[in-house]
């Protein structure tokens, strides 16, 4: 195999030297000092794609114009030029580019920035939960991170949790650490949570928005309206202030609203308008706003696109960094697994408890209740929210008190027969 690869590489080099004496290259100089060499294959207003060659492989790199210092087009680069120490087009990452790569070992560099990554995923409320996040932050104490990255991938959930999550970010994380939202998907309540962070970064496939509140009634949706809507709009104005985001943008994510923007061509500064008179129509009265990654950056909602931890660290200005706080994220992962299992099991146990009661088997029903307590302890969000998708009510102290009471009464009735 090694011989085959070597043969291929030699053949490729020979072909390059013989057939293409001078390669036409584009060079993209980035603001962070890197230089990408290759062929610019696609350009939009705010981005470009450059196909970079590494050996026989080609890879399309996505680059935001905001990160570009300057572009040299059709540069003649001879092999000598390349040998003379040109910056590698795609420097090999020190860790796997996979976002879920295991924590990076501490480098020798004592000045390496310490970054903690905490994943916040699935339904806001039961899974993406303020108490659980606060616990993860407590676990960070000994690791002394400088930056806490909240890695968000959630389609939203229960609106009540937004304020709690925002409060944890504002009062528990921000005073101690630089906090960053890194968005794979932040829809609805997840977008509202991310909005607390001044610094939002997007994964390439990322999206953020669609924050309309609604409830399901008899299989039909019903948007939140009236006073309740006004409260949520006011709440998000305050959270917008926390994150230093223009409240008009969040409003267009919540209710159908005209929204346009002007972008200063020299500074890139974005001016928002709550009508359609701006240079760019961002949303209309017939839409709810969700940004893709390109537009989020283009309109200044997010600062950059980063597709893996190394890219994010670079975007955060960390040339050397180390991942810390594995315990904090492990807690989140375990918490989600527990909640997932607990939701299904709680629904099942409640049904079995009902069967036991129908059969007059109070002892078995009590045993079931004990199991339910165990699951509620393991997955603490069940106390607040139960399992909405499985018809399980909040498993709080009041719930257990009432069920205990009923079981006691049944036991007495049976004893009295």
């Amino acid at each position, binding site marked *: 195999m090694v011989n085959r690869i070597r043969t291929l590489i030699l053949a490729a080099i020979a072909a390059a030297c013989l057939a293409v004496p001078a390669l036409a290259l584009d060079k993209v100089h980035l603001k962070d000092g890197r230089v990408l060499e290759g062929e610019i294959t696609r350009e939009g207003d705010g981005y470009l794609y450059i196909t970079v060659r590494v050996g026989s492989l*080609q*890879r399309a790199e996505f680059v935001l114009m905001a990160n570009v210092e300057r572009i040299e087009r059709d540069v003649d680069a001879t092999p000598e030029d390349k040998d003379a120490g040109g910056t590698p087009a795609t420097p090999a990452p020190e860790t796997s580019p996979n976002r879920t790569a295991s924590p990076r070992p501490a480098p020798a560099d004592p000045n390496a920035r310490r970054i903690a990554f905490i994943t916040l995923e699935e339904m806001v409320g039961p899974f993406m939960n303020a108490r659980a996040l606060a616990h993860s932050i407590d676990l960070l104490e000994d690791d002394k991170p400088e930056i806490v990255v909240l890695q968000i991938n959630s389609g939203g959930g229960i609106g009540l949790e937004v304020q709690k999550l925002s409060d944890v970010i504002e009062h528990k994380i921000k005073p101690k650490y630089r906090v960053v939202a890194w968005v794979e998907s932040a829809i609805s309540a997840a977008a509202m949570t991310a909005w607390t962070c001044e610094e939002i970064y997007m994964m390439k496939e990322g999206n953020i928005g*669609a924050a*309309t509140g*609604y409830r399901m009634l008899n299989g039909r949706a019903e*948007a939140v309206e009236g006073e309740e809507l006004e409260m949520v709009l006011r709440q998000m104005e305050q959270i917008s202030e926390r994150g230093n985001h223009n409240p008009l943008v969040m409003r267009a994510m919540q209710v159908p609203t005209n929204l346009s923007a002007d972008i200063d061509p020299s500074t890139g500064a974005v001016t928002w308008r709550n009508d359609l008179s701006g240079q760019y129509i961002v949303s209309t009265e017939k839409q709810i706003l969700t*940004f*893709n990654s390109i537009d989020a950056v283009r309109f200044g909602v997010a600062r950059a696109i980063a597709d893996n931890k190394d890219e994010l660290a670079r975007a955060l200005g960390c040339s050397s960094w180390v991942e810390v706080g594995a315990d904090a994220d492990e807690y989140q992962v375990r918490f989600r697994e527990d909640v997932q299992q607990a939701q299904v099991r709680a629904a099942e146990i409640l049904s079995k408890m009902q069967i036991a009661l129908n*059969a007059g088997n109070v002892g078995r029903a009590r045993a079931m209740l004990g199991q339910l307590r165990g699951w509620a302890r393991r997955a603490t969000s069940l106390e607040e929210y139960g399992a909405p998708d499985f018809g399980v009510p909040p498993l709080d102290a009041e719930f257990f008190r009432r069920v205990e009471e009923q079981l006691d009464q049944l036991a007495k009735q049976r004893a009295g027969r």
Partner: protein
Amino acid sequence: MRRCSRWVALPLLALIAIGLSASPVGLAPIARAAQDGTAQSGPLDRVILKSGQVIVGRVLEETATEVRVLVMVGGISAPTTYRRDEVLSIERGVVEDTAGGSSGTPAPSPKAESSERATRPAKPGAARIYLLELRGDLGKDISATPLRRAMEDAVANDPDVIVIKMNAGSAAPGFDGLWAAEDLGPIVEEQIDAGRRVVFWIERAQSGAAFLPLVSPEIYFTSGGKLGGVGDLSDFDIGDETVNLKQISLRIGHAEGFAITGGYDPRLIRAMALKEEWLAVRFRGGEPEYITWEPRPEDGDGWVVLTDDGEGDNEDEFSFEGNDVLTLDADWAFRLGVAKGVVDTMDDLAFELNIGRDYEVIEGRGSQILKDWRDRLDRALDQINRIQRDLSDRGGRRLSESARLGRQINLLKQLRGILTSFAEVLDPDGSQRASIDIQIEELRQQIQRASRGR
């Protein structure tokens, strides 16, 4: 309204000439070569493009702006036009014609070519192509477990290129097949992120399957290839207009992520999904330029309306056949830069991939893994039907009550086992198995009551 019917100014042919860069124009190589009557004998010419690609064939015509070449690949010839400014040099009569493509003999059919490939031993160091066929429906026949295993097999074979040939739809029809694609996208992206070359080759990518190829920057179409069938999002309705807008918005946001990942224009997604979206294109310097409104005089000329607003006179008579929503055929996929080429044979694909004639198609287990999964899933579904028939069958009347209940418990346990084996497609959140556990519990209580009543 049919697509292409609204020409604002430039005729189609002129637009093709301007719009296409150094990629081959010819979409039906064999037929066109024969029609041209350009076959000659003698050594062939070599055209070297600035991209590094080397074309062997016969230069038919040179103008100030174009070079027309009868390209010879694997015995097949095709007249192909390249932009002059993409050409680095032309060397005439320097390549011995060994393939016989220019000798006037008929070009081999794809089948003959394929058998030629099978019998021709690959040279040492030949490029290795791993071919993985995705057939069936995403979210059912094609789910995370078999796809992951198939990709693992591909990687284990250490190919130079993984070609995923797609003829697929999704179990969820229309746009909402997106969610099945979201489960699978990361499995492909993982390999691309690791520096592997993953190429999609589209016969049919419909519903949710339309999104999956977009994670790769390299897509090719067969000449009959289609990508789309997701244009039902405007009809989304869960009972509240504002909530509908929210649901549509978030879905578009997710789908645009696929396009951005592979380097495609996200505006194509809206045109594919929403009937009311205008999308018009013209070509400048070979690159598509889009507007998302009906072309106006002040927008200049050369616009082709890809999709209109589907309102009034613009409404299509038949859904998915007009231009209310965008479905990419091979021609448009190529023109818009979604497809890098249109090829019907592995030889042509290898040529387009700059691999040339010396390649080896790896007989991996990937396609078999996916087929086995499909077959086993089909059998499992049959078993589920049988078990449900047996469960509702009271034919066990000859049995005692407790024996009948015991039999039902056993059937439910079998059902639970099947659901566990195919949990990712049949019971992803475990709720069905939980429900079976409750039924089993109920049956056990009945057995206890029956035994107490004896």
